[in-house]
């Protein structure tokens, strides 16, 4: 091996006596480095953008989500609350099920007889009713192999937001009043969401504090503006509008979620009031469990593990487990991003192959140049295989050196990316990358994926490029070469 390395390195070092080989070799290294640089910078920025977009896309949702299936809603466990006095003849949310003392509140001595077609209870081995929510919750808590996983019940309801904005012009001291109304999705504060980081607002004389999307600020909404959330409820005298007083306690970044700006975070108490007055069917559309994992990456792994654990506990039919990439609003965007990345990776491989093809020309020239030396080495006992290995190593080293140069320059570029962006913006006369899509700054972290991809692809292609010259070199007949001198 030392012999192969020593000769290969000697051949690769530029020399004035082998000027043409040296020039082609330097050009090859330059071209491959350039491609490596381009691929790493592009993939790193793309991956950074993808990460940011994914984070924004799912910023209001946990990376993992469990929602009850139809089987759950049709189960005896869920339906029985509606015929039981102990449950006030109303279905329970997941949170209520979790804190209820009895899995089966039905008491035949007080409650009316259940209809004949009522669902059959899912019983445990000891004959008691399987407590789906509590058992599932325990399963979640046990399933923490991939880091801390925080389960949190979520509810989404519907309501109309009305805001009255009475503002005073600081210069003219004139007061003006405007109104804003919007049909909204209403959900409870999430304490476990690390990306939103909400501070639960206090309830004041103005009402409950709510957090709305920052887009409202563009319409002149300020923190402290008050109003109400209204909903309609059926009473004996007809449909009546109910109003719950609120005030704007803060704003959140809705990210790219389609309903983001229509989502209002409110106190759990307010959600309960809404739910108790709106028909069950509407309310239950938005009840489930958010599972907060430390990062998005762990969500996919944890999902598989959780599904397996639920399967083992006989609970899988009651839950639909989804990772962020499965969310109906996120999937098309994420799939598109993945397709773009795959496409560029393929293009990158093709460009690398074209760039590395220079290595073939360079090494073939080197083989011709070193024919006599190869014969001499063979006369001293170097086998054809080792001669071939010399040129294979030359190809490998050319690729490796080019990769290292490309990676180093890519790191430098990423470090000073903002400068480059500013320069591009200056050349174009307008912003090169719009902040609405790419954020205030382009992501400039070196992507380990792209680094691994480029290193493997370049060295592999270079090694392959060395094969043809290596075969040619190994076929040199020393007797012919040495005799011809």
């Amino acid at each position, binding site marked *: 091996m*030392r*012999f192969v390395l*020593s000769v290969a390195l*000697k051949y690769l070092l530029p*020399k004035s*006596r082998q000027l043409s080989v040296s020039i082609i070799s330097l050009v090859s290294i330059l071209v491959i480095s350039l491609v490596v640089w381009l691929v790493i910078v592009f993939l790193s920025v793309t991956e950074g953008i993808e990460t940011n977009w994914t984070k924004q896309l799912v910023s209001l949702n946990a990376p993992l989500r469990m929602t009850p299936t139809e089987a759950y809603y049709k189960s005896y466990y869920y339906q029985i609350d509606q015929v039981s006095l102990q449950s006030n003849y109303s279905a329970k949310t997941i949170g209520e099920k979790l804190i209820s003392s009895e899995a089966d509140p039905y008491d035949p001595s007080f409650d009316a007889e259940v209809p004949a077609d009522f669902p059959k209870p899912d019983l445990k081995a000891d004959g008691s009713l399987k407590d789906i929510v509590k058992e599932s919750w325990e399963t979640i808590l046990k399933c923490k192999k991939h880091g801390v996983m925080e389960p949190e019940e979520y509810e989404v309801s519907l309501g109309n937001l009305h805001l009255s904005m009475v503002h005073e012009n600081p210069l003219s001291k004139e007061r003006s009043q405007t109104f804003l109304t919007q049909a909204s999705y209403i959900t409870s504060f999430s304490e476990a969401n690390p990306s939103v980081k909400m501070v639960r607002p206090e309830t004041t004389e103005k009402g409950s504090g709510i957090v709305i999307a920052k887009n409202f600020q563009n319409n002149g909404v300020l923190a402290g503006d008050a109003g109400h959330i209204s909903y309609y409820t059926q009473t004996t005298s007809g449909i009546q509008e109910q109003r719950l007083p609120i005030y704007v306690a803060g704003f959140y970044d809705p990210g790219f979620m389609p309903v983001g700006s229509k989502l209002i975070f409110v106190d759990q108490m307010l959600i309960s009031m809404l739910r108790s007055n709106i028909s069950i069917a509407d309310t239950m559309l938005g009840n489930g469990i958010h599972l907060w994992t430390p990062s998005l990456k762990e969500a996919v792994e944890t999902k598989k593990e959780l599904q397996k654990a639920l399967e083992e506990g006989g609970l899988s039919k009651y839950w639909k487990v989804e990772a962020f990439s499965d969310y109906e609003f996120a999937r098309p965007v994420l799939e598109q991003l993945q397709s773009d990345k795959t496409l560029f990776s393929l293009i990158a491989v093709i460009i690398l192959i074209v760039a590395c093809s220079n290595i073939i020309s360079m090494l073939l020239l080197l083989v011709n140049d070193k024919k*006599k*030396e190869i*014969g*001499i*080495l*063979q*006369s*001293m*006992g*170097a*086998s*054809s295989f*080792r001669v071939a290995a010399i040129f294979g190593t030359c190809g490998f080293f050319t690729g490796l050196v080019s990769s290292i140069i490309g990676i180093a320059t890519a790191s430098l570029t990423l470090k000073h990316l903002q400068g480059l962006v500013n320069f591009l913006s200056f050349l174009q006369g307008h912003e090169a990358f719009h902040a609405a899509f790419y954020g205030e700054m382009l992501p400039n972290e070196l992507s380990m994926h792209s680094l691994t991809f480029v290193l493997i692809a370049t060295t592999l292609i270079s090694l392959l490029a060395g094969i043809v010259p290596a075969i040619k070199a190994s076929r040199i*007949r*020393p*007797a012919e070469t*040495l*005799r011809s*001198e």
Partner: protein
Amino acid sequence: MEPILQAKRLRKIFLHPSPVEILKEIDIEIYPGESTAIVGNSGEGKSTLLYLLGTLEEASSGNLYIKGKKVTPSTSAPLRNAHIGFIFQSFHLLEDQTALQNVLMPALIAGKEIRKGSFAHTRALELLEQVGLSHRVSFTTRLLSGGEKQRVAIARALCNDPAILLADEPSGNLDSQTALLIHDLLLSCVQKLGKTLIVVTHNQELAALCTNIHRLHQGILLPERLGPL
């Protein structure tokens, strides 16, 4: 005594441009410590025979044994590295490397340690001293004279302490005085170091100094003189 090198019915046919049988069933046995000269007219195939005996060329048919081991395509390179040292008419040195690096190359191919102070390094310096080139150790061989180049080649051939030295017109490119010096060096390898020498030469004086003389004529190797005069 077992022959150190044995050829049995070796044939060589060159197919291009038209088939020519250059060597016809060569049988030869070389014993350790012998010096053998192969003489003949130009174009008779002396160098081809030497390359066949040195495993640099593959025979069209027949067998070759080095120290009793049959030479096959897979064993030829290691056998060559361990047991054979070549000396060529055109020296065939690595021109960009120093005399010392050239001498060390067979050791590097053999996978030996060649760093300063290692056995191979010390031996290479000793060999260069023995051929009278201790003052040219770090000279690039391109800069050396013909005689010096051939002495480096002899030192290189001896690096792995091979039992057999094969020389192809070793003094063909040298003036008569330098040629005598090279002849002395080669024969001293036989006499002092116990090496086996096979030399292809037109030089009658050198051939006369060898133990055996074989003449190659029309593809047939005939012994002209066996044993000392």
